[in-house]
């Protein structure tokens, strides 16, 4: 039984690898599903509260590069996604208010011009769903909604260099 499950899983992987390039070209990156965001240390305030003098980013090269890289996990958008995941409580509060430092940082990371920040926030506010309980799920939904705006209506003003 176990062997057949492994074989089935391997077959799925092989098939998905075979079709991956064509499919991914059509898809937007979801950093939660493809880069492991959410499994990191700042997944909620409770975890962060237990850590003092916290050490992060050690030995990694994951410095936000400001260089868009749709097919990797080191691009500016992934950094923005990480920021959203880490700060979702503040981002959600600032979004319902309509402004704040976290929103500015987030939109900067998404490469959006300051002149359209307020318009993007207003657009996000219209569709904002605050009902999710889990912060990771909330952050993921928020990012996808934001990404929709920045790569759609505001694509001309939100270009990661």
């Amino acid at each position, binding site marked *: 039984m176990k062997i057949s499950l492994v074989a089935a899983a391997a077959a799925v992987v092989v098939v998905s690898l075979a079709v991956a390039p064509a499919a991914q070209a059509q898809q937007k990156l979801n950093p939660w599903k493809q880069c492991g965001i959410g499994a990191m240390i700042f997944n909620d*305030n409770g975890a962060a509260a237990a850590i003092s003098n916290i*050490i992060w980013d050690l030995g990694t090269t994951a410095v936000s590069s400001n260089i868009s890289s749709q097919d990797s996990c080191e691009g500016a958008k992934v950094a923005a996604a990480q920021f959203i995941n880490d700060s979702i409580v503040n981002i959600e509060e600032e979004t319902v208010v309509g*402004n704040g430092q*976290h929103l500015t940082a987030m939109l900067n990371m998404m490469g959006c011009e300051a002149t359209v920040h307020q318009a993007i926030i207003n657009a996000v506010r219209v569709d904002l769903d605050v009902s999710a309980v889990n912060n990771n799920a909330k952050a993921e939904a928020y990012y996808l909604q934001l990404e929709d705006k920045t790569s759609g209506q505001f694509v001309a003003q939100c270009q990661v260099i």
Partner: protein
Amino acid sequence: MWCCLRILLLSILLCSGFRTVAEPVKSFKELADEPYWRALLHFPKGAEHSEIVDVGFFLAPDGARNPYAELRATVQQLNAAVSEDLNSHAQCRFIARFHWLKRHLPNEFTNAPAVSCPLFNSWTDQQQISSVSAVFASGYLGNPASFYGHILLKLNSSNQNKNILQQQSLNFGAAVPDAEHPLVYIAKGLFGGYKAVFSHGLFYKNVQTYGEAELRDLWEYQLQLEPEQVQQLVFHAWELIGRDYKYFFLKQNCAYRMAELLELVIDKELISKRQLWAMPVTVFHRLSEIQHNDTPLVQRVIHHPSRQQRFHQRFLELNTDQRNVASAIIDAGFLVHSDAYALLTAKQQSEVLEMLFDYLEFLRINEHALFSDDSKQRLLKARLALPVTELTTSANNNATPPHSGTLPSMLQLSAVQKNTANNAVQLRFRAAYYDLLTADAGRAPYSALSMFDVTLRYDGEVDLQRFELLNIENMNLGKTGLPGDGGYAWKINIAYAPQHLACDDCLAPQFTAGLGKAQMLADNVLAYVLTDGSLHSNTEQTGMVSLQPRLGVVADITPWWRMQLEAGRRFYISGNAEHMNWYSWQHRFGTWQGADIRLGIQRKKETELTLAYSFYW
């Protein structure tokens, strides 16, 4: 375009090594003995071994003990051919060394390869870091390692498209395994059992950790450094990231290492290397005293209030109607529908809801039963229904910055008059930090936190009068009267102290823990009631357990005069000693950072009147 131009200009500057005046070329041997080279390798003054215990930091096999060999190896590696991985080239790993050596040994680098360093450039936002801030995270009584606050550096980019949360920060801390036993934690922390490293991350992570999760205020001290000094500091910080040090809780801690890094460019001592302990707040006291090019080194102090501070401030800014509405919303389980709420203007409604956001998050952190995700959702939905407004800010934030408080270490000389025995002279030394009479600047109000507090008395002969290893007293005050704001007052004390004042030889080791409640009676008057339970040696038939209910008042009569009146009764539960009534009335005069005068009277079987002069540093 400007960015590229900037990099080009910086590259030219780097190649020239800031050589504005011709300096005599020194030999390798002479350079290896230069204090600056030894500082770059982290050799303490006079030491024969670097404090960095990471072999990856040294290019010579014996570099950790031999600055000369390390210099030769560094020159060789800086001239080495470039491999595919640019970032691993010595010019990218040891930028401060390269910079300094090129200045002093220009002829050694005429054929050195030109190496660009993508990772470093990315970290420095394409070398746009234009200023440095030292940041103080206020003390946190939830973790022994954080009692005394924390220091980190913030590296500020001139890039207009980055706000404060996106700036780089540099931290130094011990690598402590999860779920470490507290006793192991203390022992290893004291005796160098942990490795520690410099780490980096965007500043928002500090905001999340300290401001949001640990409810600690951040105080940013923007330093006015020359561009070359900023660059020098950034270059060396880059070399240090991820390198292993041994961590010592008392001395070679975050304050010591950050001071060491700043001293590299400030050229003034920020932490005494002779003193056996180092405290973060000392660095800020020192920074605020320093004049740099005839102007204060600290250009500006910015307060980044914690979630708790924002909650308090926003509540205090509400008018009475708004406060009543807030209370009604809380009582209704955070349902936001009431006639009183509807009567407020949209702006007033927003202010109430935004205060409640902070309140709920404050409850969440404290794991209070009133918090629920549903409550937060209701508040968010209610606020979403209101128009966009400017986020209310704590305009009236009058918190006092930590550097304006009393200095942390104390030496005190007292004259003691006794009722029935010889008068005496006392000398008291306290390594750190403050007591209930100390002014509250930069710390939890009405609290005490002291460590290694020893008192010697001379009344014909010298005796140890008292030794307190640790004393913590936290009144845990709320400011709003809302449920969950403020909690139990508590105390922990470990001491070798007399049972009362009438005996010459009744010192007893004792461990005391107290619990109670404190309340502000007026703006400047605090009242409290606590019951202390003590375990101690059986000295003078006291038995080993005693209980001590006590009642006290702390009042700021003027800004320069605080008094504490306290009375209680001590019950010796398991001994034959007579139970004892006692009182104490203490005064502190003066708000100077370096001194105060104290006058007190206390009775514990014997009455003592004490006049003391305290000197702080």
